């Protein structure tokens, strides 16, 4: 009878197409918004992932995310180095600074100071110039994308035509003239301000003076040691907190989601997709059941139990859900491919289609509930009423 149920569904092509289109649209809305949300979430940890050499991130215990500037005592570096299981530990400086370009334009940039000796914590891909050039006097590295956009220069004074910031160009950081010695490539982040790298000592030299200057300590765990265990030992030291890279990423993501309301905004859109799915599929399914009411009643008269009819309706709903979901997810993947070159955050992680699938199934069950009750209440004798 399941095959009969599906033949009944597929036979009414217009209603079937409407039902599938409604579910595909709901799936598209849910999974596309879900993928964009996942893309934003992924971006919150992009800088941490780009700084791939560190197993552990050590910071003031009150730091909540990557841009949170709460500093530690310089001695924290030595304390971390003294913990058993730490192979190496290097300092890192990170702060916002005013940046003045050669054409007079001013922007706020994030400046990162890397350990002078090792340059550990540097971005992984250089586009031009070299990381070693950072050791040159007043050397800085700029992001290739920033160089085309926020850090681009007017070709002539007053001209709207711009050119990218190149190696050799000069930039004022907090009123200190610096020289671009290389351009690197980074993963697109949640935060948009230009990210400029220099050495730790140079960063301290140009930064506004503070009693404490150290933001982060990056550490590598010796082979054979458990990362979580070493992090716990470091965290036991007073005033500082150590996270694995994944842990820090999760903490940053959690803070950003809580503070920005992104979760609520996307949640509302996804919920709207769900409601639209329920309304469209519920309406069409209800009409479909209404149109087939006499057929179901005839089957009931001919001996079909309520359970059998329930299975038939469930099969119809699930089949439509499966096809609608497939088309919707396909369209989402296609839109992701089309948008892959754009600035739009998009990450169709495996959780997104799984979540979308569960949402569509629940949506269909809601829709089916509206219709099934009608089938269950059918009097088989209704078929004798002409």
């Amino acid at each position, binding site marked *: 009878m399941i095959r009969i149920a599906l033949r009944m569904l597929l*036979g009414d092509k217009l209603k079937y197409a409407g039902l599938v289109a409604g579910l595909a649209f709901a799936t598209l809305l849910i999974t596309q918004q879900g993928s964009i949300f996942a893309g934003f979430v992924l971006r919150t940890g992009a800088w941490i992932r780009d700084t791939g050499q560190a197993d552990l991130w050590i910071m003031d215990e009150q730091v909540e995310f990557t841009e949170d500037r709460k500093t530690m005592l310089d001695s924290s570096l030595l304390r971390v180095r003294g913990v058993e299981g730490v192979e190496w530990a290097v300092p890192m400086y990170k702060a916002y600074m005013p940046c003045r370009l050669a054409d007079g334009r001013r922007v706020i940039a994030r400046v990162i100071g890397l350990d002078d000796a090792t340059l550990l914590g540097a971005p992984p891909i250089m586009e031009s110039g070299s990381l070693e050039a950072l050791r040159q006097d007043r050397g800085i590295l700029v992001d290739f994308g920033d160089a085309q956009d926020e850090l681009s220069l007017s070709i002539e004074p007053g001209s709207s035509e711009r050119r990218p910031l190149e190696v050799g160009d000069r930039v004022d950081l907090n009123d200190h003239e610096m020289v671009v010695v290389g351009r690197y490539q980074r993963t697109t982040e949640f935060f948009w301000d230009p990210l400029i790298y220099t050495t730790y000592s140079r960063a301290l030299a140009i930064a506004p003076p503070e009693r404490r200057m150290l933001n982060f300590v990056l550490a590598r765990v010796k082979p054979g040691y458990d990362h979580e265990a070493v992090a716990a030992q470091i965290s036991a030291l007073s005033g500082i907190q150590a996270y694995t890279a994944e842990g820090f990423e999760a903490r940053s993501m959690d803070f950003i989601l809580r503070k920005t309301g992104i979760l609520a905004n996307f949640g509302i859109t996804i919920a709207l997709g769900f409601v639209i799915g329920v309304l469209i599929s519920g309406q069409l399914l209800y009409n479909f059941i209404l149109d087939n009411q006499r057929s179901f009643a005839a089957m009931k008269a001919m*001996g079909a139990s*309520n359970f059998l009819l329930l299975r038939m309706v469930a099969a119809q709903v699930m089949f439509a859900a499966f096809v609608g979901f497939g088309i919707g997810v396909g369209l989402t993947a296609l839109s992701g491919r089309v948008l892959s070159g754009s600035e739009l955050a998009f990450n169709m992680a495996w959780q997104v289609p799984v979540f979308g699938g569960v949402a569509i199934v629940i949506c269909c069950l809601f829709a089916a509930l509206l219709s099934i009750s009608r089938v269950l209440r059918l009097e088989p004798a209704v078929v*004798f009423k*002409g």
Partner: protein
Amino acid sequence: MSKLTAGQLAVNCRGLTKQYGQGENAVQALRGIDLEVRTGEMTYLVGPSGCGKTTLISVIAGTLDRSGGACEVFGDDVASWGERKRAAWRGRNVGFVFQALNLVPTLTAAENVAIPLMILGEGHDKAVRRAGEMLERVDLGARARSLPAQLSGGQQQRVAIARALVHDPRLVVCDEPTSALDHDTGHRVMELLRSVASSAERALIVVTHDARIFSLADRIAHMDDGRVERVESTPSSR
């Protein structure tokens, strides 16, 4: 299930009543029906519209509860059972030809005929094959793959008859089977029903007010105002 022979009591209704609604809105559809239907017979229930014919076959077929009296079908008091048991009983024992036919428009003739077999648990392919054989018996073997909309009214009625008989039920109830057919087609359909469905082990009850087909009945129960006024045997039964 013991083997039935012609002339055995298939349906035995005594003082059967059915009331729709309550209080001032109550409608007494059946007012104490006494009726016997025997195997091997084609019994017509005739009478004016609203006299209770359809209500009576609905109660006999186990699709409607009675309000009072007794009604046994092949010795079973179906009304005393729960809906699940009653549905299973209908599936095994009753074939239906509905006035509106109720063929599923999106299924082929063979699939429509196969529905009672599939309700009884038979697989799709085997049921459709058996349905095809049944369609051969009603001279529609060549139209097994046609959709109902591609068939004439008479052909659709034959599909409905094939569907009522495919699972070899002991009782076949037909509600106004010729109401939508012209005289010749109606007559041919009833002749076909009689020739294909009549069996010593089966009872047929036909609700109709089409006097043109009375000659094909074995017995005719005349109903009026919720009562069986009289039951007469026809020449065809003698």
